[in-house]
């Protein structure tokens, strides 16, 4: 809690409750802790992923076009497989020409079923 500091056991329990009700939903973190921990996202913004919400510099100028390429990362790690070229069955070679994402991202193309 930002404005109150718990000083006895009962206050500690209220603190836990308030934190669970007021703090942002944090991915992959089922049990919010009173202790502040770093937010570790699964699979996205820590790596260079062309077309993600912001570019490597934190702005939007470097974002790729078309927007379909935003989801390149989903293809590789398959955590949203239905929405991306399906590398298991229909587009196994989609990233064949993209050895290094930071250099070759332009080689990722649209898939026309």
């Amino acid at each position, binding site marked *: *809690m930002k*404005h*109150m*500091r718990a000083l006895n*056991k009962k206050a500690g*329990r209220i603190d836990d*409750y308030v934190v669970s009700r007021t703090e942002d939903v944090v991915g992959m973190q089922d049990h919010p802790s009173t202790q502040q921990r770093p937010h570790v996202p699964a699979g996205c913004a820590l790596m260079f992923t062309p077309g993600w919400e912001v570019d490597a510099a934190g702005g939007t100028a470097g974002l790729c076009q078309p927007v379909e390429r935003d989801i390149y990362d989903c293809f590789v790690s398959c955590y949203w497989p239905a929405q991306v070229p399906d590398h298991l069955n229909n587009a196994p070679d989609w990233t064949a020409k993209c050895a290094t994402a930071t250099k070759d991202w332009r080689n990722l193309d649209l898939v026309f079923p």
Partner: protein
Amino acid sequence: MTASMTASATRVYRLGEFHRFDAEGARFLYLVPAGAIFAVDTAVGKLIECLTPGELSHDRLIENLAANGLGIEDSEELIDEMYHANVIVANDSVPDRPQPLPDVFPIQTLVMNLTNQCNLSCQYCYEFGADKLATPEGKPKFMDLETAKTSVDFLLSQSGDRRSIHITFFGGETLMNYPLLKEVVAYANLRAGEQGRHVDFSLTTNATLLTPTIIEFLSQNNIGVTVSMDGPKEMHDHLRVFANGKGSYDIIEPKVRALIQNHRTRPITARVTLTAGVSDVLRIFRHLKQDLGFHEVGFAPVTTSPNQLYAINATGMDSVLDQFHTLADEYLEYALRGESHGFSNVSDTLAELCQGVNKSHPCGAGLGLLGVGPSGDIAPCHRFVDSDAHALGHISTGIDKAKQADFLRRGHIDSKYDCHTCWARPLCAGGCHHEAFVRYGDTGHPNLHYCDWIRDWTNTCLEIYGAIAAKNPGFLQQFAERKAS
């Protein structure tokens, strides 16, 4: 997120139930009825000021906070936090529902009145004095071994899976039945040991019958001792007298010194009863703590109907409170240096504040604590022992559930309407059942004659708690580990 934003935007806020206090230049809130203590920042203070004149809609509250220099995002966050902590409440806040008592509540403590006989004739005695409830006619004066063993078995069988249970020996004068006390200690240790459990013992005595042998036994068996003693000679002898009127101070003074010197396994406590003629708290404390060397000294005003000559009147209670404040200031100085002061009225309250107790009943009587008289009658606590009107069954047949339920229903905080607007109720819960009966003829009546006094004293202890939390929080650790009494 959208849903909750919409919900908050339509709320109309008002202040929740809490008590504000300051200590060491910092601000604190005591949340009622939770019993939670928080240190708060200036933004919380501004929020409370905004809502003090009356309720405000969400948007108006944001505007008012903006006028006090808070940005919109900060205000939204502040309101959300305070709303979920119940510092402020809204039209959609759900009031606490009364909680029924658990069907099974394991006993923790059994107070065994080994005898109802006493070798002193203290005029204020609740067992023999003018306000007595006991009806001992035709009942045994001394508990026999069989009743005592049945009582121990009763405690062991009724204490559920509690690993540690407590037996307190009481009277009359407890040591008038010392032979039985020794037998009970041996028997209880044996039976509890068979079950892999531990029994903790304590006793209250007037110290007149202490001998080196008894002191050695008490020390060897880790038996906690509380001595009923009212101060230096002239005060102690005012009411604590033998049947011939002679004071008991000269008899007990050397025995108490020997007890404190030779009983090395537990702290020795003095328990002082304050009366109209004996209310010089500071002098009593100095004598018992410094001259005699008690580790802890606790005070309680005499329990009495209002018209007894020894009853303390309102002016006397104000004077007692002033002197409590002086000792409380001393306690704080000691605590900030990490030292023990010995004024147990403060330390007992700090222990409860540390846990954040929110009591359904003022004490454990009839719930986790029971008294047993020499006849084997079960009472809510030692103060009701031998009173037919208050018996809750017999040790051989167990607790009379209907009578117990009636006692607990009367004493429940939900039944005490006068208490529902009092911020001190999480700790007080209406006060002693026995005192209520003596004053008002009903164990469930709130003790309205000392409400202001209790609120003042609770506030004082909160200030001490806040000051220690701010300057020497490590000192509170001892209370976190100690179970609330």
